[in-house]
Every structure is written in structure tokens, then in C-alpha cells.
């Protein structure tokens, strides 16, 4: 098991600063009515900015499935959001807008506090270090789980006649706490922080959040992607270490490995596939060769596995 502290803490990314700026800006927008500004009304589930109504597409679907009624103007407000995040990149929402980032980050901080040199120091009596490491292990599950969760929550809404996810949605709770003040429901957020720290790293966003699942689905159509220069990549793996969703870089790195050394690559630019990239852009900064760029999507060319095997022999 890897207990080594990741070096991404010491590394300062300009894009991270920009992203944090955006996230804080969105939080300020949600708080703004309480501060006396009136350009934004509502929370992250639904709101109107400068009179334009916006609606979370998952909440929209759940409400329709549970009540069997459509408020027609809400179709437009949900469509605006969905189309915007399709164009800019689905889970851009997760990386740049969603306030849940700070919740999962808090969980990550707790984990790191225990994992660093503090692990030995804070060990309660009677617990062996291996056991403690096992508790703090970064459990991973199938990335498909969130799509199942999306179907599950939508199905449950249909069956129970209640918008089930919205009932305890932590995004909703955080949003309402920011806009109208926190209450007892913030306990669920604390539970998620504990889950993040001791069960799975960023597990909520990776495996459960149906909002993220929907944005991940539309993110597959995103025109702009993180691209890896397959011909010049040195396979140092730093990008994966800094990445919030390391598995999205698996495929491009694997292909880059095949084309290593610029040996007549089929396609020089290998795009991140699927819709799980959050566009945090930290890989752009950390890459020592500067071979990762934000470019248009290059659909992957089929590798002739037979020819490759031959070449290796």
C-alpha cells in the first residue's frame, strides 16, 4: 500500500488558483442575496441569474418522474444548463462550479493528516499501523457505479413519487446552507467528509453523485479535451498523480506508451476519452515536457494490435 504523501501539495498550479477563484466566486454568488445583492436568486439546484432561469437537469428529471407533470418553461432552463456543460465539457461543473469540491477536499485533508507523518504519532493504543493503513486505504470501485446510481435514483423517484435524490442531495444541502443558513441537515455533509476520509478518496463524486453521472454522460460529447502528445510523452506519470480522476489518463498514457519515441504514431494527439475529466487543467501545469494541451477532441484511431505485436517481436 502506498502511504507516501503525494507531491501535489507542494506544487502550485496557476490553473488551480484560477479554479479555486472560480469556485469561491460561485460560493459568493450563492451567498450574494444575503449580502444584499439581487442578481442571483436560489441555490445550485435551481436559480435565476440576471433573470435567466437555470435548473439542475437531474432535479428536473426527478421532479417530472415523481409528479408526472412538466412545467414547460423549466424545460428551457434545464436545457440551457445541459447544453452549456455539453459544450464546455460535462464535468467541468464538478471541477469549477460545484461547492461539494470543498467538502471532498476537506475529507482529503483529513486523510492526508492521518496518512502523513502523523499516522504513527496519532495511532490510538491497541491499533497496529497496518490496521490503520487498511482503514485509510483508498478503496476504488467501478466507475460505472455512478451511472447505476443515476438510474437508481431516477427509478426510485418514479416508484416512490418523491424526488428521492433531492431529498438528501448534499449539493442541495450545501447550496441551501450557503443561501439560507445551515441547519441540522449539515450532518449529512459531515458524514460525507468521513466517508471521503476513511472509505474512498473522492468517492462521493466518483461513484455516487448522479449529477456528476449525468454531466459525465454529456461530457462524452465535449468538443474540447485534454490532449496528450503521444509522440513526445516520457511516461513520467506526474499528470496522473496530480489528476483528480486519474483513470481518465489511463488510455492516453497507454497509447502514448505504444507510440513512444515518435515511432510513426497513428495519431499524435491522444484525447482523454469518456466524460469524467473535470478540466482542472493541473496536468497542463505539472507536465515537465509540456506535452499535455487543451485541444479539440481527436477521436482515437484503431490500433492494429496484430501489427504491433509483430513489431515488438
Amino acid at each position: 500500500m502506498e502511504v507516501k504523501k503525494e507531491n501535489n501539495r507542494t506544487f502550485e498550479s496557476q490553473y488551480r488558483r484560477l479554479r479555486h477563484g472560480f469556485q469561491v466566486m460561485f460560493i459568493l454568488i450563492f451567498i450574494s442575496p444575503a449580502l444584499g445583492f439581487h442578481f442571483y436568486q436560489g441555490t445550485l439546484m435551481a436559480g435565476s441569474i440576471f433573470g435567466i432561469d437555470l435548473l439542475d437537469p437531474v432535479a428536473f428529471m426527478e421532479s417530472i418522474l415523481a409528479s408526472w407533470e412538466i412545467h414547460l418553461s423549466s424545460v428551457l432552463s434545464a436545457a440551457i444548463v445541459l447544453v452549456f456543460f455539453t459544450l464546455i465539457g460535462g464535468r467541468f461543473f464538478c471541477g469549477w462550479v460545484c461547492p461539494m469540491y470543498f467538502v471532498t477536499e476537506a475529507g482529503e485533508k483529513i486523510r492526508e493528516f492521518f496518512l502523513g507523518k502523523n499516522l504513527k504519532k496519532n495511532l490510538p493504543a491497541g491499533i497496529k499501523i497496518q490496521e490503520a493503513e487498511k482503514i485509510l486505504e483508498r478503496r476504488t470501485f467501478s466507475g460505472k457505479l455512478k451511472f447505476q446510481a443515476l438510474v437508481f435514483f431516477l427509478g426510485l423517484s418514479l416508484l416512490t413519487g418523491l424526488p428521492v435524490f433531492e431529498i438528501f442531495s448534499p449539493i442541495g444541502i450545501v447550496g441551501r446552507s450557503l443561501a439560507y443558513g445551515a441547519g441540522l441537515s449539515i450532518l449529512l455533509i459531515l458524514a460525507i467528509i468521513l466517508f471521503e476520509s476513511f472509505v474512498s478518496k473522492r468517492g462521493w463524486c466518483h461513484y455516487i453523485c448522479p449529477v456528476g453521472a449525468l454531466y459525465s454522460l454529456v461530457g462524452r460529447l465535449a468538443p474540447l479535451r485534454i490532449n496528450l502528445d503521444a509522440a513526445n510523452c516520457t511516461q513520467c506519470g506526474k499528470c496522473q498523480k496530480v489528476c483528480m480522476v486519474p483513470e481518465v489518463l489511463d488510455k492516453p498514457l497507454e497509447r502514448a506508451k505504444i507510440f513512444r519515441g515518435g515511432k510513426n504514431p497513428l495519431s499524435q494527439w491522444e484525447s482523454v476519452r469518456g466524460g469524467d475529466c473535470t478540466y482542472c487543467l493541473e496536468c497542463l501545469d505539472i507536465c515537465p515536457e509540456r506535452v499535455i494541451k487543451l485541444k479539440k477532441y481527436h477521436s482515437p484511431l484503431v490500433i492494429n494490435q496484430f501489427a504491433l505485436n509483430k513489431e515488438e517481436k
Partner: protein
Amino acid sequence: VYKFFVNRIEFIKSMGMTAFALTGGLTLVKIFSNGRHDDFFIARPPGADLNGKFEAACIRCGKCKAACPYDSIIMSEGENGISVGTPYLNLRQKPCYLCSGLPCVKVCPTTALDHELVDTKNVRIGTAAITDREACLALKGLRCEVCHRVCPLIDKAIVVEKRVNPRTGVHVIFEPVVHKDKCVGCGICEHACVLDRPAIVVMADMRGDKSRHYLEMK
């Protein structure tokens, strides 16, 4: 789908996971969504259909609260068993002042608040009723009638009926009487009642299904 479940162990595992998730999910639903108007009356914002439709469509976004200029709408945190995140009104503290145009209904992104409701006269948050006739000052023979004076539908929803005070034989009892076909349930009377525990309170709309007497049921 077949490919996904091709491995039997995988299949059993996923079934187990689904069962676990279902139990967990339903437990969470139970904890977070009690108070479905079956047990007691909850005053919801104007246009809310209390017969299940409101709970089904409300996405707990809080736009109605943001739109309310009087800050009457409260977002529940689970207090008193009201489902978490749903808007409600504490009429005794702050009633609905029936703004023209009903901004709370207008901003609702779903059908939780009925968008066909435009006229404030058709609002039915509930119906006011004098529940404590022994405490009501007007019924004791005093000139109170505060509920009648503050009613936005004065002499329509709350009418003062006069009759002779049988105790003295010469004085008049000015009894406030609520007309349930006119009352919108705004709760301004409940808010204004001078007693510590209001003698007039808003209760479930008398014409709703939930408040029907069992003898009326078919």
C-alpha cells in the same frame, strides 16, 4: 446488459449491491421525507397541492424563499418532522401577505407550486378556524375582533356576526365567523390574534381530500 451480467458472481454481487442500496436509500428517504401531510397540517407556500403533488414535484431549491419579500417562507431542516429542504410557513410568526402576482409561485421551477394560480383570492394555504371558542376574547363579550380587522378579505372571509350576550342580556357579542369558501389561509389572523395561544388558527383546507370526513368518502 447481458455482457454486463455475464459473470454469475458479478451478477450476484451487483444484485446484493442493489439490495443494499435499496434498503439504504429507502431508509434515507424515510428519515428525510416524513411529514407528508398525512399526520398533521403543514402550511406550504401558495399553490402547493398538499395531496402528495407538492412533495413529488418540489426539488428543494429554495427559490420561493428567495422570492418572498416578507421572508415568510422557511426552508425546513427536518424540524417538527417536516421533510428536509422543503419550504413551509410558520403563520403565527410570519404569515403570507399575499403579494400581488405571487412571486413565490412565479419562480418555482417545477409544478410544486401551481403556476395557474395567479389571483391571490384563489390561494388555499389552508382555512382559518376559531379552534378555541372558550379563549376567544370576542366570544367572551369583549370588543376584540382583531382577526376580522386584519383579514385581507375583511367582511368576506371573516365576517362579524352580532348576537345578544346572554350573560348580561343588554350587551352584544361580536363573533368573528370564517367563511371557508373565501378564506385563503394566509394566516394573518393567526399572526394577529392577541392571545398567547391563538384562538384562531389555519388548518387544512376544508375542501381537500385529506380533511374529508370518512362519512363523505365513497
